[in-house]
């Protein structure tokens, strides 16, 4: 990416509105949001609960569709997708990381990481290999056969990150990824995000913790369904500088 041509943005939201209910009881969760996120950006979306950031996360993650407005994910208009294609977009283009890890219970870490590849139709041998590589990348190469219940919260979240990254998605979408973790695990996860970002992947983190937002290159703040501020920060420290160099 030498800048010879301008890459299309990963996220392109134009006037996205989400209304729940109808008539007098209608709730405007999002009131016309415009947001463009370019490839390689590391964005933190902040806001109090009820500010609309979770609704944004659902729309960005193709788990929900906007009431009005247009949302292009990697150039694909998500409103035109049927249920099956939505599932495919989630599978190919987005890696999810949730607050509560959301690993499939009673299923080994290795199998959990293989799961998106299985739904993508990747062959077993290749799946094993790629899942093992993804686990190695989050530092859990030796925990593949462990069940989620045998792993600490931090380890479970790292397995979830490995699962999110194993399909090489264009966007890593994290919803309060450190909300259920202690401070040491939080640092581990955030360091991992820094590495991922340094690798050139686009990250969108939804959080209310300043500690998390500090790591991002760009912070978007929400209040009552609207963007109230959108600031880009100078990359923090040498690692971020290296990230810029790599890009």
């Amino acid at each position, binding site marked *: 990416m030498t800048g010879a041509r301008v890459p299309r943005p990963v996220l392109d939201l134009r006037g996205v509105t989400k209304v729940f209910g109808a008539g007098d009881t209608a709730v405007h969760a999002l009131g016309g949001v415009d947001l463009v996120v370019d490839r390689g950006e590391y964005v933190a979306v902040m806001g109090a609960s009820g500010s609309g950031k979770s609704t944004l996360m*659902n729309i960005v*993650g193709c*788990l*929900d569709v906007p009431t009005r407005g247009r949302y292009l994910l990697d150039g694909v208009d998500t409103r035109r997708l049927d*249920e*099956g294609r939505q*599932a*495919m977009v*989630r*599978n*190919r283009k987005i890696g*999810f990381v*949730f607050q509560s890890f*959301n*690993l*499939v*219970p*009673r*299923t080994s870490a290795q199998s959990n990481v293989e*799961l*998106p590849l*299985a*739904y*993508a*139709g990747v062959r077993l041998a290749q799946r094993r290999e790629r899942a093992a590589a993804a686990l190695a990348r989050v530092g859990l190469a030796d925990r593949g056969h462990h069940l989620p219940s045998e792993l600490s919260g931090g380890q479970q979240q790292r397995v979830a990150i490995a*699962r999110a990254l194993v*399909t090489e998605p264009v966007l890593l979408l994290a919803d309060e990824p450190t909300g259920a973790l202690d401070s040491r695990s939080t640092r581990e996860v955030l360091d991992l995000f820094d590495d991922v970002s340094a690798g050139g992947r686009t990250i969108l983190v939804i959080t209310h913790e300043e500690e998390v937002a500090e790591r991002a290159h760009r912070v978007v703040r929400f209040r009552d369904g609207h963007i109230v501020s959108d600031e880009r920060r100078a990359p923090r420290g040498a690692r971020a500088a290296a990230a810029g160099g790599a890009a």
Partner: protein
Amino acid sequence: MNVRESARFAVRGVTANPMRTALTTLGILIGVAAVIILVAVGNGSSAAVKESLSRLGSNTLTVQASQGGTGGRAGGFGGFGGAPGEVSSGTRTRTAELTLDDAEALTDATLAPHVLRVAPRVSASSVTATYDGATHTVSTFLGTSPSYLTINDDSVQKGETLTAEDWTGRRRVALVGSSVAEDLVGGDGLDAVGKTVQFDGIGFTVVGVLTDKGSTGPQDEDDRVIAPLTAVQDTLTGYGSLSAISVQAKDADSVATAQAEIEDVLNSRHHVTSDDADYSIQNPTSLLTAVTSTSQTFTVLLASVAAISLLVGGIGVMNIMLVTVTERTREIGIRKAIGARRGDIVGQFLLEAVLLSLFGGVMGVLVGLAGSRFEIVGVRPVVSASSVALAFGVAVGTGLFFGLYPANRAAALRPIEALRYE
């Protein structure tokens, strides 16, 4: 995502909760095993009856008296030579009688050329045999002619058979079945030959012990006594009507012809037509048909009771699958979030339901086959391959049918709501 993947997930789902899986499959197991065993019992009993019928010989006909036609038609019996019983003429119904003369007439080579042998039969009921302090209640005490032994394919394992002289001489001699002989003289019963046994106080000399017929079902075929009809009429039954006439046709092919000839002879003797005949003729085929249809009804009845338990098992599968889907709502949400399509989820849960019923079906077949090896209420079950296939097929179909609704419910869950589910 292929079927193998879905199967892998399904197996994992089923094995995750072994106790629940075992109990759910138990329902299917019992249903399948019940179908197999009950159908086998039905088949077994019909096979047993068929076997005993086939022993009668395929060219044997039995003529029995039956309630005759109604109306003013008086029964005119030619009571020559023989000793016909009381005929109540003029009443609206009359008791039909078969006489020795009827039997005699059937031997006429010109009127009934296809009849080979004829044996008149009288039977005495609840005859008590005593010998040297031992007593035995004979279930079948038969007075007949020596030709009966040929018709019925009977022989003696020791002693001598009945002869024409025994008949004409009205000799009080008897052949006894082994069950009777064993009870009276102990041991293998063969020592009964030559002994004089009191039958209801009348002494008959045992001249032979009949060869074992074995027992079919609850009836002991060896609990019988055969004596010359003449002597039995003299002593035990009196000179009333015959209880039946056994007729042997020339060969298996002429049974129908022989039956027609018998009807002609008896119709003219009894002054009746075939429509209001006062006797009935049982041929082995019609008997077999009657027995077969009865036992089929019996088998169907048993099978439908078993099918109900299979249905209950299927509802059990559905119930547990609904619980499973509710329990694993969150897991379904996760799977959908990371790219599972509707079909993937349907496939996984449907396969889980089918696995439960498949497992139950296989176990049910094994239990059913094992259970059918034992004798049940005196019947040796005969497993029919079709009942095994049917029970197994229905079990798997049940899983498929009852799994469809829960699986679709799982697939229809919206990922955001499923993920939020606690």
